[in-house]
C-alpha cells in the first residue's frame, strides 16, 4: 500500500462528539448528500457505488451496486432497510457507528435511498441497543430539522423519511427475510429465497437490505470517488473495514483497517497480541458463525475471498480469539446453545438438530460424555447445514464441524477423562 491508511468510518470517534450534528458537519458531514442531490442523478450515485466495488459488510459480501441493480423498474414503491440488528457473536462494529457516528449512517441511508428511489427507509435496530436508539432518535430529529431527512431534502425534489424500528431480541431478524417478516409485524421467520427482497421484499415490494457499515461507506465513496475507494485494500474486496477483535488478545476492540489486512497483523500489531506465553488455539475470523482457523492460517488476508479459501468466511469480521488454555468443548457448547436458542423453529434440522448438538456438548463438557457422542456430533453438521430454509443452521454448526476437524483429540480426551484437559480446568 503506497498511501498509509487513514480510518474513514471511525475517523474522529473518541476525539470529537460526532453524534452532534454541527460537529459532524464540521468534518464535512452531509456534503456527500448535498453533492448527490444537487449535482448527481440517482443513476450516477448508483454507478459510483457500483464502480467502487463496495461489497456488503453484513456478512455475505455481496456487491452493493449489483444488489441495487436487481430492483425491477416497474413503478412499484421501493423500500430501503438499514440492517442494524447486529447480533453476530463477536461483532460490535455497527453499535460503535450507531452510538458514536450516527449521522454517517443516516447520510449513508439518504444516499442509498436517493440512488434507488426509496419510498421509505427503515432502520431495523437491534432491540437491545437502547443507547443507540436514543442517539439515533436525537440525530434523526436534528437531521430532519436541517433538511437532511424528510420532505424535499436540501431543497431538492428528493424526499425520504427514515423510521427506526426496534427489534426485540431475536438474532434471526438479522437474516434479511427474517427481518422482513419481523418488520411486517410477524414472527421473525425467514422464508425461502427466491423471490429475493429486490423483487419481493417488504410488503411484497422491491426492497434493498444493507448493513449499517455498508451504508456508512457511501458518503466517502460519493465525496472522494469510486476510484479512491477501490484503491483501498484487496482489489476484489476493497475499502475500509472495521474488524471487531475480542477474546484472548491484549487490546480487544474495533480496528478500522483496509480489507485484506493479514489476520496476523490485526491480531499482533493492532490488537496487542496474546498474553505472554500464550499460543493461539483457534480464531473465528467472521463472528460466531464462521468456522475456526488455527495458527497455520494467520497469514490469511482478511478479505471475503481469501478467508473463504482458507475454509472459513469473513462474515461480519468479528474476530474471536481462543488461546491454548481455552476449552474447545466449552466454546462449542456456548455457541451451539446460542444458535439452538436463536433458531426460529421452522425447520426440523435446525430446531431439533442444534438443540441435540447443544445437549450432547453440554453433557460432554460436564463430564458425562460417551464415545458414541463423538459419532453423533460428527454426523450432525452435514445433516443440518445446507438442509434448511436459511443459513442460520449452517452458522450453528460452523464452529462444531471445524473444531471437530482440528481438535478431535481434545473432544475424545474430554469424553474419556470426563473433564477438560486444558489448564484452566485442571485444578
Amino acid at each position, binding site marked *: 500500500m503506497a498511501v498509509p491508511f487513514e480510518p474513514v468510518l471511525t475517523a474522529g*470517534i*473518541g476525539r470529537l462528539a460526532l453524534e452532534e450534528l454541527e460537529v459532524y458537519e464540521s468534518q464535512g458531514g452531509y456534503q456527500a448528500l448535498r453533492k448527490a442531490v444537487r449535482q448527481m442523478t440517482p443513476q450516477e450515485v448508483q454507478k459510483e457505488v457500483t464502480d467502487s466495488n463496495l461489497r456488503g459488510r453484513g456478512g455475505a459480501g455481496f456487491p452493493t451496486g449489483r444488489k441495487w441493480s436487481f430492483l425491477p423498474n416497474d413503478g412499484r*414503491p421501493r423500500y430501503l432497510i438499514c440492517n442494524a440488528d*447486529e*447480533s*453476530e*457473536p*463477536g*461483532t*460490535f462494529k*455497527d*453499535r*460503535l457507528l450507531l*452510538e458514536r457516528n450516527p449521522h454517517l449512517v443516516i447520510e449513508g441511508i439518504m444516499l442509498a435511498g436517493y440512488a434507488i428511489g426509496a419510498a*421509505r427507509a427503515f432502520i431495523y435496530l*437491534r*432491540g*437491545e*441497543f*437502547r*443507547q443507540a436508539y*436514543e442517539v439515533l432518535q436525537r440525530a434523526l430529529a436534528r437531521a430532519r430539522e436541517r433538511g437532511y431527512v424528510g420532505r424535499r431534502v436540501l431543497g431538492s425534489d428528493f424526499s425520504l423519511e427514515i423510521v427506526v*424500528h*426496534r*427489534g*426485540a*431480541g*431475536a*438474532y434471526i431478524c438479522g437474516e434479511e427475510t427474517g427481518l422482513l417478516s*419481523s*418488520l411486517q*409485524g*410477524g*414472527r*421473525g*421467520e425467514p422464508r425461502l429465497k427466491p423471490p429475493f427482497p429486490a423483487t419481493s421484499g417488504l*410488503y411484497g415490494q422491491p426492497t434493498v437490505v444493507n448493513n449499517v457499515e455498508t451504508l456508512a461507506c457511501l458518503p466517502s465513496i460519493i465525496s472522494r470517488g469510486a476510484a479512491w475507494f477501490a484503491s483501498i485494500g484487496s482489489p476484489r474486496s476493497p475499502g475500509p473495514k472495521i474488524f*471487531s*477483535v*475480542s*477474546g*484472548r488478545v*491484549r*487490546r*480487544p*476492540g*474495533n*480496528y478500522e483497517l483496509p480489507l485484506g489486512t493479514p489476520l496476523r497483523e490485526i491480531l499482533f500489531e493492532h*490488537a496487542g497480541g496474546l*498474553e505472554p506465553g500464550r499460543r493461539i488455539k483457534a480464531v473465528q475470523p467472521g463472528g*460466531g458463525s464462521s468456522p475456526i482457523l488455527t495458527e497455520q492460517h494467520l497469514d490469511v488476508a482478511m478479505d471475503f475471498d481469501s478467508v473463504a479459501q482458507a475454509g472459513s468466511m469473513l462474515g461480519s469480521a468479528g474476530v*474471536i480469539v481462543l488461546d491454548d488454555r*481455552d476449552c474447545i468443548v466449552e*466454546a462449542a457448547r*456456548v*455457541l451451539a446453545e*446460542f444458535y439452538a*436458542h*436463536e433458531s*426460529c423453529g421452522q425447520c426440523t434440522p435446525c430446531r431439533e438438530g442444534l438443540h441435540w448438538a447443544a445437549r450432547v456438548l453440554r453433557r460432554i463438557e460436564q463430564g458425562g460424555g460417551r464415545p458414541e457422542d463423538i459419532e453423533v456430533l460428527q454426523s450432525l453438521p452435514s445433516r443440518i447445514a445446507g438442509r434448511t430454509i436459511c443459513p442460520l443452521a449452517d452458522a450453528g454448526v460452523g464452529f462444531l464441524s471445524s473444531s471437530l476437524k482440528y481438535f478431535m483429540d481434545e473432544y475424545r480426551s474430554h469424553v474419556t477423562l470426563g473433564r477438560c484437559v486444558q489448564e484452566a480446568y485442571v485444578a
Partner: protein
Amino acid sequence: MTPEWARRREQVAEILERYPERRSAIMPLLHLAQEERGYVAQEDVEAIAEILEMTPAQVESVASFYALYRRRPQGRYTLTVCSNLACVLGGARGLVEHLRQRLGVEPGETTPDGLFTLQVTGECLAACDQAPVMQVNGYYVHRAVPEKVDRVLEALRRGVPPASLADRATLPGEAAAPPDGASAGTGPGPSQEEASAHGRAL
C-alpha cells in the same frame, strides 16, 4: 379498550403512521406496553389485537417469538448478563455468580424487594471488547468486575437512573468513562487484563 390504551390514542396513531401497513406496528406497540408497565399484560395483548385487527392469538404468537417481550412483571431494574463466547472467555460465569450472591436470586428471578431481576442471555450483547458485559434496563455496564458491579448496584439502589451509568461503545485507547460517569461514581472500568484475570479466578 382499556382506559390506558384509550389515553395512548395519539401515541398509537403516531406509531401507525410510520408504516404503510398496520400490522408492522405490532412491535412498537408491544414495546410501548412494556415500557409503561414493565411487561406485556394480557389486556395489552387484547388491546393491540383490536388496534391492529388481529386475533389475540396472533399477537401472542408474535410477542412470544421475541426474547425481550416479558409476559410477567419484572423488577425495576433488569440486569442482563451476556453469556456468549467472548464474555464467557472474559469472565461471564464469575459475573453471574457475583450477582447471584449479591442479589440472592437465580437467573430469571426477581429480588423480593422488586428492585432487580437477573437475566442471563446467550445473545451476544455486542460489547465483546468490554467483557464481561451486562445491561441494566438496556444500558451497558462494560467490564463488569465485582467492584464495579457493586458500585452500580449501590447507585441504582440510591435511585441513580441507569442511563447515567451507561457505558458507550468506544474505540481502543479511548477513555471508557460514561459521559457523566463521575457523578454516578462508577469511574473508569478496569483494563481487560484485570477483568479477565478476575473472571479466571472465579
